[in-house]
C-alpha cells in the first residue's frame, strides 16, 4: 500500500472533496497552519479561485457566514487555523449552528465544517495552544472529529464534507509530517468507529489526536518492559464508539486515558466517567488520566513540556495501572 505524509493525504482529501462537490467552499486559512507545507495549499486555491476564500480577520462574522451559507445549501469548510480562534466565533458555533436543526424541529440543516489546529505546538503560549474539543463536546448538536493518522485524516475529512451536521474537525500541527499507509481510493471513514491502533492485553490506553501517536511510541517502549498496551483511538467523540473501548477495557481491565485538553472537564474526564460507570465491576485499577495540567500554557519550552501529557507521564501512568495486579478488597 502506498505511503503518504499526513499533510499530503489531507491535501489530497481536500482536492478530491472540491472536485466531487461544487457546493463545497473553503474559507479561512491553509488547513496546514503556519507549517512550511502551507504553500502547497496555494495550488488548491489557484485551481478554485471562486471556492477558496480568504475572509477578513472576523472569525465571528465569517464562521457565522459559513453557517448561514450551509443553511442555504452550500457545504462550507472553514479553517480557523489555531483552535483558540474558534472562541471568537463561539456564539455562532455553539449557539447558532449547534441548535439550528433542533430549534427548528428538524427543518434547518447546517452542513458546515470548522477545521482547527489544537494543542501544544511548542511556543504557542497561553493564547494559541487551546484544545477546545471538550467544551465543544459539552455542546450537543456538534459532531467532533479527531484524526490521528494519514489514513484517518483523509477518510474522516471526506465524511465531514458529507455530513449534514455541523462538524468540528480538530487536527494537530505535530501530525503533519507523520508518514503512513493510505490506500489509493480509500473510502471515507464513517464517524463513530473507534480504531484499535495497537493490540495488547495488559493495559488499555485511550488516546486522541496527536496523543495517539505519542501513546504508540510509549507502548512500543513499554513492550520491552513486558507491558503490552492496547491503544484505542475513538477518532470521533460525537458520535462516540463506546463499545470498542469497552471491549478493550473488559479485556485489559486497566485503563489510561491520554488527551491534550486541560484536565478539568476535559475529554478524559468524560471517558473516565463513562468507563468508570460501565466498567465498574471490570476494572482492576483506578482509571488514570494523562492530560495537560490545569494551568494556562506557558511559553518557555521546559515549562510547556512539564505541563504536557509527555511520554514520561504516559509511561508512568501505564506502569502504575499495570503493576500490582491487586484485587479489590473491601475494607471493613
Amino acid at each position: 500500500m502506498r505511503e503518504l505524509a499526513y499533510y499530503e493525504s489531507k491535501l489530497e482529501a481536500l482536492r478530491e472533496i472540491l472536485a466531487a462537490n461544487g457546493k463545497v467552499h473553503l474559507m479561512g486559512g491553509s488547513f496546514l497552519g503556519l507549517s512550511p507545507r502551507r504553500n502547497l495549499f496555494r495550488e488548491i486555491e489557484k485551481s478554485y479561485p471562486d471556492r477558496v476564500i480568504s475572509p477578513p480577520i472576523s472569525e465571528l462574522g465569517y464562521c457565522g457566514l459559513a453557517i448561514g451559507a450551509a443553511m442555504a445549501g452550500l457545504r462550507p469548510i472553514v479553517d480557523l487555523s489555531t483552535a483558540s480562534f474558534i472562541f471568537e466565533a463561539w456564539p455562532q458555533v455553539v449557539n447558532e449552528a449547534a441548535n439550528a436543526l433542533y430549534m427548528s424541529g428538524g427543518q434547518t440543516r447546517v452542513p458546515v465544517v470548522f477545521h482547527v489546529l489544537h494543542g501544544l505546538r511548542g511556543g504557542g503560549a497561553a493564547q494559541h495552544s487551546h484544545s477546545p474539543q471538550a467544551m465543544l463536546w459539552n455542546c450537543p448538536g456538534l459532531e467532533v472529529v479527531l484524526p490521528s493518522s494519514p489514513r484517518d485524516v483523509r477518510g474522516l475529512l471526506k465524511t465531514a464534507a458529507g455530513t449534514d451536521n455541523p462538524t468540528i474537525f480538530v487536527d494537530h500541527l505535530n501530525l503533519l509530517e507523520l508518514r503512513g499507509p493510505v490506500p489509493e481510493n480509500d473510502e471515507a471513514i464513517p464517524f463513530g468507529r473507534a480504531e484499535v491502533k495497537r493490540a495488547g492485553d495488559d493495559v488499555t490506553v485511550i488516546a486522541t489526536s496527536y496523543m495517539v501517536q505519542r501513546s504508540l511510541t510509549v507502548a512500543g517502549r513499554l513492550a520491552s518492559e513486558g507491558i503490552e498496551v492496547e491503544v484505542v483511538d475513538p477518532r470521533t467523540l460525537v458520535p462516540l464508539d463506546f463499545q470498542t473501548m469497552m471491549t478493550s477495557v473488559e479485556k485489559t481491565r486497566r485503563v489510561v486515558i491520554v488527551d491534550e485538553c486541560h484536565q478539568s472537564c476535559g475529554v478524559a474526564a468524560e471517558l473516565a466517567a463513562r468507563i468508570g460507570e460501565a466498567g465498574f465491576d471490570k476494572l482492576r485499577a483506578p482509571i488514570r488520566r494523562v492530560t495537560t495540567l490545569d494551568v494556562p500554557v506557558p511559553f518557555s519550552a521546559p515549562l510547556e513540556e512539564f505541563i504536557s501529557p509527555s511520554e514520561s507521564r504516559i509511561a508512568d501512568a501505564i506502569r502504575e495501572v499495570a503493576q500490582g495486579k491487586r484485587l479489590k478488597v473491601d475494607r471493613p
Partner: protein
Amino acid sequence: MLPEITRENLIDFCRRMLLIRLFEEALIVLHKAGRFSGHYHVYIGQEATGVSALSFLEEGDSIFTTHRNHGHLLARGAEPGRLLAEILGRRDGYNKGKGGTFHTNVAALGFLQASGVVGGIIPLATGAAYAIKAQETGRISVCLFGDGALEEGAAAESFNIASLWKLPVLYLCENNGKYGHGRDVGAARSSTLATYPLTDLPAAYRLPIHQVDGTDAGAVHGVVAEAIKKIRWDGGPQFIEAQTVRWPGGETNWPIVPIPTDVALAWDVNSVPEAARHWYRDSDPVLILIRELVEKKQATKAEINQIQKGVRDVVDRAVEFALASPYPKPETALEDVFA
C-alpha cells in the same frame, strides 16, 4: 401614504397587518392565562414594516429573524394555528414545540433561522447571501433585526464582508427605539449607539442606506421596492432603517394591552387610556393604514369592519387549534439533534 399596489393587495395588506395585531393580542391573553411560560416579544407597532417588506419576497429567498418574529411569519403567510401551537409548545407547532416564541421557523416559507441572540442572524443572513451568489440562483437574503443588534460586533463584521464581497442581502433594521426606554439615540447616559443616525455604521462600510417611517406601509413599500430592485439588479447589499414608535404596552417582556385593537379606533381613540392614546392616534401602523384606505376611498368603513370580522374568526380558530393540539411526547426531546 398608501403602497402603490392594486386595491386587492391593499386589502390584503390590511388583512395581514390586522391579523398580526389580533393574533398577538390573543397571545397576550393566553400568556396571562398561563398557557405558556417564559418571556416573549410582540411585533405590535411594526406591522407595516414586516408586511410591506416581505410582500416582495419570492420562492427561494431566505429570511432570518429574531426574538420578535411572530409578525414576520404571519406577514409571510404562516398558518396562525400552527404558529400559535409552536408558541404554546404544542405538537402541531411548526417546530414540534422545540422552538417556541423565540425560534418560530417555517423553512417552507424561506425562514432559515429565528435567533434569540441579539445580532446572531446578521452573519447568518450574510452567509445565505454568499450561498445565493455562489449558486447564482438570483435569490436574495433578507435579515430583519432590531436597532440593538447594531451594538453587537457581529453586525460590523458582517457589513464589512457583505460590502467587500457584494453579497445580495437586504439588512432591514427595525428601529423601534425611538422614545423606547434605554434605546434612545443621542449622547445621553442612557444612549447605546454613538453612530447617529444609526445608518452611519453601514454607511461607513459603503453599504447603500435608506431611512423610512416604519409606521407608514406605503413609505416602507416604496423604499423596499427600490432596495430589492437594486439587489436583484447589481447583486450588492442594501441597508434600510425602518423607524417605528414603541408601543406603550410593549415596554416589558410581558406585554400588557392598553386596549384591545378595534378598527373603530382609527376614527376615535377616546376609549384609549390617556397614557397610551397618543400612540393609537399617531403611531399605530394598522390604524394609519385603515384610515388611509378609507380616506383614499379604497375601502369603506363597512368593508374594514368585514375584514376585522374575518380576521377575528381566523384568530379564534387559531386559538382553538393551538389549544386542542396535544403536547409532544416527552421522548421526542431526543429527536432532531442530528440530521
